[in-house]
């Protein structure tokens, strides 16, 4: 038995989690190893010390709040749905979106949604928008006291997207919030007011359609919704690397096409809970007009310690972006690192001289980037990252792409021979 195993068993025994057989093995090791014996003897002292740390106290009113919530009539506590909820029309929260949605899609009704193909005029109007994503999510729960109905929360979101720019309007159980994001800037508005931040925009604040929570998990999919005008079912197995779980989702799509657009009506049943998700997704290429992202006047930026710089002024920056991408902005971080954003069909984040990060919750695989040794780093809540060294700098490239494509992208940004 080695020391690490002995200490693991000693620790488990202190917690009453070790069986007798293994305890005997442990005792045999402890007889001949003073260091492990000292470790085992010190555990109770450590526990005593830990008990002296003050613990977080829940607010005294928490119990009362929960009691009040439970005592409320159910109709006031949460949205109550009939057991077999009927499909409702999309409820758009802004007039603009409502007009567009109505023009594009008649109404989604019944278990087999009926969708009208958009007219050419509506398609032209929509073509001014980079993309539009409307989502209605119902999370439902069984109510044992009322088996004839479900209790549910409802969230509706409307996203306008274009490369690097996102406007999100969300209504959840009657409360409306707005978020506007672009590289280096984030604006939030809710019932309590608004806030604006400038500075670095961490990759983990990328908008949901680019969310690493979706991208970071392996995907095995069946036939996708690729055929216009046909109903299709996609079964997807998702593997959560960090939590080591596999989830099976079944989604039903109705696909209607209008040139570049696609409309999806989706119902997902996961193993964890029932989620009924109605999604309308329209993708177009043209750039979104800036007025949709205007920051309301009267709000002052807060400098988070980063200053805009030109890409060329950052040592180690790639000479140019690969074809199809543009270097759109850059900032210098507080620790001397440089961050560049490249935009095209998606955002690319290049971090230079990044500080080493805790590898504890990450999965790392060795790769080669244009002949150089590198690492693919995968962790939940982050985009896939490729790390490698160029001319004394540590370069980290992340993008909302599968890891193998991020490696290819990194090789295009930093081709062989460029040190």
């Amino acid at each position: 038995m080695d020391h690490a195993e002995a200490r693991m068993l000693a620790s488990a025994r202190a917690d009453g989690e070790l069986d007798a057989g293994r305890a005997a093995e442990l005792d045999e090791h402890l007889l001949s190893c003073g260091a492990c014996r000292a470790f085992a003897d010190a555990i109770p002292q450590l526990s005593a010390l830990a008990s002296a740390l003050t613990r977080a106290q829940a607010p005294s009113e928490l119990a009362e709040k929960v009691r009040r919530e439970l005592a409320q009539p159910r109709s006031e506590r949460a949205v109550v749905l009939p057991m077999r909820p009927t499909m409702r029309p999309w409820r758009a929260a802004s007039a603009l979106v409502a007009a567009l949605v109505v023009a594009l899609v008649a109404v989604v009704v019944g278990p087999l949604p009926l969708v009208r193909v958009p007219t050419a005029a509506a398609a032209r109007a929509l073509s001014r928008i980079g993309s539009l994503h409307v989502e209605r999510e119902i999370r439902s729960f069984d109510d044992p006291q009322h088996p004839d109905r479900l209790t549910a929360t409802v969230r509706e979101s409307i996203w306008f997207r274009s490369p690097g720019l996102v406007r999100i309007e969300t209504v959840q159980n009657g409360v409306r919030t707005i978020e506007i994001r672009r590289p280096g800037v984030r604006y939030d508005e809710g019932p309590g007011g608004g806030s604006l931040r400038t500075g670095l925009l961490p990759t983990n604040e990328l908008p949901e359609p680019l969310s690493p929570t979706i991208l970071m998990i392996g995907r095995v999919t069946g036939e996708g919704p690729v055929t216009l005008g046909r109903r299709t079912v996609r079964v997807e197995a998702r593997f959560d690397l960090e939590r080591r779980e596999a989830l099976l989702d079944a989604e039903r799509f109705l696909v209607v096409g209008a040139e570049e657009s696609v409309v999806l009506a989706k119902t997902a049943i996961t193993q964890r809970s029932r989620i009924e998700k109605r999604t309308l997704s329209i993708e177009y290429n043209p750039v979104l007009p800036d007025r949709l992202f205007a920051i309301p006047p009267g709000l002052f930026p807060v400098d988070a310690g980063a200053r805009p710089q030109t890409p060329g002024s950052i040592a180690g920056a790639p000479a140019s972006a690969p074809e199809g991408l543009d270097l759109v902005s850059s900032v210098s971080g507080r620790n001397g690192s440089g961050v560049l954003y490249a935009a095209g069909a998606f955002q690319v984040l290049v971090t230079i001289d990044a500080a080493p990060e805790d590898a504890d919750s990450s999965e790392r695989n060795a790769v080669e980037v244009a002949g150089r040794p590198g690492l693919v780093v995968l962790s939940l809540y982050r985009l896939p990252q490729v790390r490698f060294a160029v001319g004394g700098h540590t370069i980290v490239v992340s993008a909302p792409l599968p890891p193998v494509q991020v490696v290819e992208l990194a090789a295009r940004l930093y081709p062989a021979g460029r040190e």
Partner: protein
Amino acid sequence: MDEARDHVAGLPQDEAGFAALVREHGDAVFGLALRRVGDRATAEDLAQETFLRAWRGRAGFRGETSVRGWLCAIAANVVRDWGRRRSRRPQESLEPEFIDVASPGDDPAVRAEVAEAIDRLRTALAALPANHREMFLLRERDGLSYADIAAVLSCPIGTVMSGLARARERLLEAVTG
């Protein structure tokens, strides 16, 4: 420390009894949320959501874990859902939980020595990898079993066992200098 294992028979089915559960386990649930979101107001909202979700799902509780372990596992899911909704990684913050230090006794010399050891422990805790810190606190502070901790952190029991040992090694190194 084993108070969490005392409740395996079932859950109160009435609202008043359930509110008593909040008083009993509120600190553990709130502490878990606070450690992950770093903001008291948000942590309180998430703790409330945890108990409401637990109330709705109480029929599914079979006593296979302790009540506290079950509540903490729900809280972990609530925080995860919140993190996904916010599209950002839950923030780690130890500040609110380690502000105060309990009085270690009357002897000034002992008091100073223990206070120093607690201070070192607090610093070493903050430096631990997040999952090791969480394992240590769930075990030592909330009294959860290894199976409960594994459920909260969605990892195998073996990972809990090795992680806790590693955490204790590092903390002891720091405390004993």
